[in-house]
């Protein structure tokens, strides 16, 4: 974290300028190395609390060096500087991660593993520590369907590797924890408007309030719409299919609401998203260039109570409720001609969790906890509208409960042992035990080595087990699906760089057994989920985070190899990834320039190979362009790179082209 300095300041003028430059609640400080602290100590406390600072993720290095994983933290400053509009944009810049998009949802891959047709069920997405993966698809919403507007995000913590020892199902490849802002960090009224290519526009507002007794309220709402582009698919290039052009079908619109309230030891969080996306790809066998859209709504409510019962005992209790509804409307060819079909799902769930953190034993921190919950509705349905014909009507529910314990033991010689185990029981699946062991050693004050072993599982979800539709683009149920499991071994070396920053090197071996995979059934030609024998992922990642001068640099390279049990290379599994994120101020102004480069090597698809790419995104942020107003301009895919992702079996296409170059401008205003 750094304090920025206006250019060309003479030392004798600094203090006067500090005060003069303060613009009500935000000001910048003039200071250089040497006598910084003495000068800062001459500033009254009233003005110290108003100094705006630039955040660097490296401030978390000390905490993360003791974490039993190679944790990466992205901050609100990163979100601003690089113009990220979705969680997918942010996560795509992490070491070893990659994102695909089929113009309906965004999909996350890690360490050479991304199964087209899976809705991010191998990642656990938490909002303020509360699970958001739904009860039918286990979907982690990371695209424009995301639960929280990115301007309301304070921090994104990504913990790679298996997290089932603490969190249970779904935490196979990592846990994403999104920490939202509070009223204290966003006081008063804020509003923003934005516009971009292909008739994209967005409006958002928030109000934050905080009292010294700890009472805190934040309410935020946003609404967006995008016309989208007409997309050409050669697979449908016939005269009766509009020569392969899907016209006016790429639209996207939605809204988000966030409400947070906290007082004393209680915290309440409510999230809501409603998004409708046009689908131009004719996926799942719909007639090409006919109206096709998906609508996703999700609402979450969580109440938490945290109390330090004694200096050695902290207790946390939480209850949460969630609902998710999905609706897809498309036109299919039937015997009687084109027919509108509706596919959908309703999920409802609630849960209670409790955990205690005990620090009474010398050199130890023990976390012990349990949770229980019910997926009250896991309903799926499908029907033709006219003539009305019910194709699928499936209602399910499930109970789940779990117990876990984790112990962090500090030993002489700079050793930390982190051991944990969790027992999960589900009414619709077999019981699971997930262990984890991490041995950390501080070789020097700057160097840490971590040896990690972990195991995680994922129960097959209702969609994979019970979704059955006859006919073209349909699917088969498979009630005999078994949970898939991953066992991982990893070594991580972390080096804290003098000044501010750190370098990380990790090597891993992941073994996945009973992998749940979507494939086309040879007999019927329908989509079906089956357990494959196993798959392996081996690889290495090198990452660097560095703050030097006013610049912030994050760079990483990854080498990875994902193979199925037969030894064949996994599809959508790039062997190499490289990323650079650089944020630097512009001379003579408060403006900041964020440049981003995300590269991937080629990947195997179902029918061939899809080429590698390097995509660059540029964002210019100009604070106080008007009194109380900040402006940002972004150019995404700046060099207009043509690239594509591997499509799942639900598509006639082998690959789906990604978005071409787009412009985006945003103006944010603070009311005083």
């Amino acid at each position, binding site marked *: 974290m750094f304090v920025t*300095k206006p250019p060309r300041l003479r030392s004798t003028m600094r203090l006067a300028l500090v005060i003069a430059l303060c613009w009500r609640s935000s000001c910048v400080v003039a200071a250089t190395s040497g006598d910084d*602290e*003495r000068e*800062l100590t001459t500033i009254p*406390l009233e003005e110290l609390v108003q100094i705006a600072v630039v955040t660097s993720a490296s401030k978390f290095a000390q*905490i993360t060096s003791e974490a039993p994983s190679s944790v990466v933290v992205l901050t609100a400053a990163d979100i601003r500087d690089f113009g990220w509009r979705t969680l997918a944009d942010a996560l795509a810049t992490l070491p070893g991660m990659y994102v695909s998009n089929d113009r309906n949802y965004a999909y996350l891959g890690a360490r050479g593993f991304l199964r087209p047709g899976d809705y991010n069920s191998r990642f656990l997405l938490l909002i303020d520590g509360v699970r958001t993966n739904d009860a039918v698809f286990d979907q982690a919403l990371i695209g424009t369907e995301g639960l929280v507007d990115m301007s309301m995000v304070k921090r994104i913590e990504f913990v790679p590797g298996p997290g089932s020892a603490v969190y249970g199902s779904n935490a196979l490849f990592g846990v994403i924890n999104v920490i939202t802002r509070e009223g204290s960090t966003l006081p008063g009224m804020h509003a923003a408007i934005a516009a971009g290519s292909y008739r994209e526009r967005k409006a958002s507002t928030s109000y934050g309030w905080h009292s010294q007794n700890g009472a805190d309220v934040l309410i935020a709402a946003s609404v967006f719409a995008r016309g989208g582009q007409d997309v050409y698919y050669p697979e449908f290039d016939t005269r009766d299919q509009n020569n392969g052009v899907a016209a006016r079908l790429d639209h996207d619109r939605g809204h988000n609401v966030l409400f947070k309230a906290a007082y004393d030891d209680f915290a309440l969080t409510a999230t809501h998203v409603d998004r409708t996306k046009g689908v131009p790809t004719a996926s799942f066998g719909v007639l090409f260039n006919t109206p096709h859209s998906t609508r996703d709504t999700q609402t979450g409510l969580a109440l938490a109570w945290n109390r*330090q019962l004694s200096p050695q005992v902290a207790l946390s209790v939480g209850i949460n409720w969630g609902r998710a509804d999905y609706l897809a409307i498309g036109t299919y060819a039937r015997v009687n001609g084109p027919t509108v079909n509706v596919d959908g799902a309703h999920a409802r769930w609630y849960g209670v969790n409790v955990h205690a953190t005990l620090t009474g034993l010398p050199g130890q921190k023990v976390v012990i906890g349990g949770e229980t919950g019910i997926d009250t509705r896991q309903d799926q349905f499908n029907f033709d509208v006219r003539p009305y014909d019910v194709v699928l009507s499936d209602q399910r529910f499930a109970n789940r409960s779990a117990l876990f314990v984790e112990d962090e033991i500090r030993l002489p010689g700079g050793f930390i042992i982190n051991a944990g185990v969790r027992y999960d029981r589900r009414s619709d699946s077999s019981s699971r035990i997930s262990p984890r062991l991490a041995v950390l050693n501080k070789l020097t004050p700057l160097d840490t080595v971590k040896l990690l072993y972990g195991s995680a599982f994922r129960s097959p979800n209702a969609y994979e087990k019970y979704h059955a539709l006859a006919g073209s683009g349909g699917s088969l149920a498979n009630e005999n699906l078994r949970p898939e499991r991953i066992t991982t071994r990893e070594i991580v070396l972390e080096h804290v760089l003098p000044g501010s920053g750190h370098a990380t090197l990790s090597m891993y071996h992941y073994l996945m057994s009973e992998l749940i995979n979507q494939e086309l059934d040879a007999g019927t030609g329908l989509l079906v989920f089956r357990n494959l024998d196993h798959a392996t992922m081996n690889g290495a990642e090198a990452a660097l985070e560095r703050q030097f001068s006013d*610049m912030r640099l994050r760079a990483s390279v990854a080498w990875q190899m994902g193979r199925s049990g037969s030894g064949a290379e996994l599809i959508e599994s790039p062997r190499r990834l490289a990323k650079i994120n650089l944020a*630097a101020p512009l001379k003579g102004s408060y403006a900041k320039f964020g440049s981003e480069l995300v590269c991937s090597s080629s990947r195997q698809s179902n029918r061939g190979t899809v080429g590698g790419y*390097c995509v660059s995104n540029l964002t210019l942020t100009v604070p106080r362009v008007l009194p109380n107003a900040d402006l940002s301009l972004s150019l995404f895919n700046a060099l207009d790179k043509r690239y594509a992702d591997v499509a799942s079996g639900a598509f006639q296409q082998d690959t789906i082209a990604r978005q071409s170059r787009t412009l985006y401008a945003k103006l944010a205003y603070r009311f005083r």
Partner: protein
Amino acid sequence: MKPAQCFWTALLIAGVSLAGASMARAQVHDAALKAAYIYNFAMFSTWPDAVPKTPLYVCANPGGPLWASLQDINGKSVNGRNWITAVLADQKTTRCDVIVLSPSDERPAASNGGKAAVPVLVVRDGAGRNGAGRNTAAVTLVDDDEHIRFDVDTGEAARDGIHFSSRLLRLARNVK
């Protein structure tokens, strides 16, 4: 990726990097700002047993992120007492008027639990690890997106024999 496109991409990134480097302006580490905060906390705190013109010992862990910035304040006057940064582990031999803890530091047993042997102002930089020991400081420095805030626990301060001025309390984010 075609070689030409690869070249232009590399050139773009290199150009931006160089532009950024040449345009970089001077700045100061946030530790300096936090040290200035702690200096102000000391200014607005009262030690009942304080002897004028004696040194004000500020104890911290030399491996912590604030150590260098605290040392830079050495010799500066705090209400007539000279600031001296000392090693926290030497507390038995050196009196501590202020203890500065990093997020991973445990509060020393000598000043833990019940009334402190001598009045001491305990400042924690950030919340304790995963909530453990989060209430064991009179003042906690809190990072938020763009600012640094602080929370005051007057009960904890009273147990440690410290009184705060109303000016300090007025500017705190939370007062307990």
